[in-house]
């Protein structure tokens, strides 16, 4: 039986790329992680979800958006963290600083910035923040600047009327907030030195932006897991290897990851991208037509350099870095193709989340480049739709609770790490509560 489990077909064995693993022979052990089965109760249990909201999302730095979205003083966007009951307003002040506030008017608690649908996110540019209800206004730094019919009020203290500020810091042009009263770490400490080096990458040169935004029927971690391993690729995306031929052994060749790294709560995989299992893959006719594919446009645009943060494992034939910034941000950087993506996974319930996906290119210089980018976006979208369908099925099965423990292989080490970090945070919260209970 065991032999059967280990068997690869001849075709599979012939096409597979191999890569060295660190001591003591597996990525999982090298990172000090357990190798036993993993509980996925953290991905459907409502009680776990309630604690996770506090332990993870109310205590971590959360990604809001790019500084490119706030081009000038007075530009703003809102972010609806509906699962936490919080609406965030991110705005660039007259002093050019980016700040975040609770999006709540100090008068009667009306939501301050919204457009038509108070539940929907909005963005724009303003000279002052004006409430639609009774006209109170705030300056771009959140201070009260106008109270309609002010003489009718009693003892208003100007300083009490400022919009409630939220800790907000920027790293590499990525804007983060932290909902703790006083964050336990600065953003830079939270990010850490290795991920931090990524700020040398020229993200700011890639401002041609596509956004996709969809509700997904799975726990946020389940889709995040799908994007931190390539073990599923030959099955969910078998057509990627050999799109034009019938299914053969070739389309089932396993993808082996050249390198994983764990940095605190964050992690990265680096893969060959277009070079992975190159011997057994074949392109689509349309990829040639557009000079572009899933991996990005072939004729990469000029950029000023790639900095010293990418490809930390120094993988030869570097194709892709997928950085998973805890808790729910992925940054994918394509080697030699010079474009990047961000994925955000925002919980909406124990079994659902909102998936937001941004794609960034260097602005195209001509129609050919514009179309090559379009072809890439649409190719990525096809596969992502497959992934969202696959996790929908998985969540349906998981939430039956029929089995609590599941098996993660060495190629799935990052998924194991994510669940361990999340479960660790929730355990800490529960231990604190138990401690407080004992003392009380």
């Amino acid at each position, binding site marked *: 039986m065991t032999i059967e489990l280990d068997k690869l077909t001849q075709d599979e064995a012939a096409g597979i790329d191999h890569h060295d693993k660190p001591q003591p022979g597996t990525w999982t052990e090298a990172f000090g992680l357990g190798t036993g089965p993993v509980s996925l109760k953290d991905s459907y249990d409502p009680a776990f979800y309630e604690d996770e909201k506090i332990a993870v999302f109310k205590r971590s730095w959360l990604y809001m958006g790019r500084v490119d979205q706030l081009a000038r003083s007075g530009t703003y966007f809102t972010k609806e963290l509906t699962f936490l009951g919080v609406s965030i307003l991110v705005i660039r002040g007259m002093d050019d600083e980016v700040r975040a506030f609770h999006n709540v008017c100090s008068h009667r608690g009306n939501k301050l910035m919204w457009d038509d649908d108070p539940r929907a996110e909005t963005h724009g540019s303003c000279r002052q923040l004006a409430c639609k209800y009774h006209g109170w206004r705030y300056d771009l730094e959140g201070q009260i600047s106008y109270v309609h019919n002010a003489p009718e009020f009693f003892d208003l203290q100007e300083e009490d009327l400022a919009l409630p500020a939220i800790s907000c810091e920027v790293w590499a042009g990525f804007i983060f907030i932290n909902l703790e009263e006083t964050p336990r770490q600065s953003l830079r400490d939270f990010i850490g030195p290795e991920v931090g080096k990524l700020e040398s990458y020229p993200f700011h040169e890639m401002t*041609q*932006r*596509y*956004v*996709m*935004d*969809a509700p*997904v*029927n799975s726990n946020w971690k389940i889709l995040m897991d799908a994007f931190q391993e390539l073990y599923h690729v030959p099955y969910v995306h078998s*057509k990627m290897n050999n*799109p*034009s031929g019938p299914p053969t052994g070739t389309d089932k060749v396993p993808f082996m990851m050249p390198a994983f790294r764990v940095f605190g709560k964050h992690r990265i995989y680096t893969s060959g991208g277009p070079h992975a299992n190159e011997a057994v893959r074949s392109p*689509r*006719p*349309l990829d040639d*037509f*557009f000079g572009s594919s899933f991996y990005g446009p072939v004729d990469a645009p000029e950029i000023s350099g790639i900095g010293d943060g990418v490809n930390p494992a120094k993988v030869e034939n570097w194709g892709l870095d997928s950085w998973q910034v805890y808790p729910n941000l992925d940054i994918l950087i394509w080697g030699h193709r010079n474009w990047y993506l961000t994925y955000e996974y925002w919980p909406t319930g124990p079994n659902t989340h909102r*998936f937001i*996906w941004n794609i960034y290119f260097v602005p*195209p*210089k*001509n*129609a*050919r*480049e*514009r*179309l090559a980018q*379009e*072809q890439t*976006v*649409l*190719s990525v*979208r*096809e596969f*992502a*739709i*497959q*992934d*969202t*369908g*696959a996790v*929908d*099925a998985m969540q349906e099965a998981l939430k039956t609770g029929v089995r609590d423990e599941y098996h993660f292989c060495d190629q799935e080490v990052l998924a194991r790490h994510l669940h361990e970090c999340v479960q660790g945070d929730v355990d800490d919260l529960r231990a604190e509560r138990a401690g407080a209970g004992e003392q009380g």
Partner: protein
Amino acid sequence: MGAGTLLPERFSDLEPFAQIWALPTANERCDRRLEATMEEMSSFYDAVLPRGDEIFDYLDTFDYPDLPDSAIHLVWLLCALSVVSFSVDVFKQPRVPDAGEGTLPITVEPAL
């Protein structure tokens, strides 16, 4: 060039496809694919694919992004080709297989 004509004269053979597929947004093009039959998409694919070099050369004669409307329609037509291509050469069906309710609406995309 008649009223309602979308494409430059020299691509008038593609005009019937432009009337259906030269839609301004990715979401409209993706929705159109879901409504289309495989025959419609194959004939569109087969008609446009061989004209690719000619279309790209034509588009290269303009300063980007200041394209005349007829050239913009050509860009949209090629964007639609990209949309239908997966159905034609990979999935052999309009929908992504096993995607269930999966959908990824595009909420921000570049102008043009």
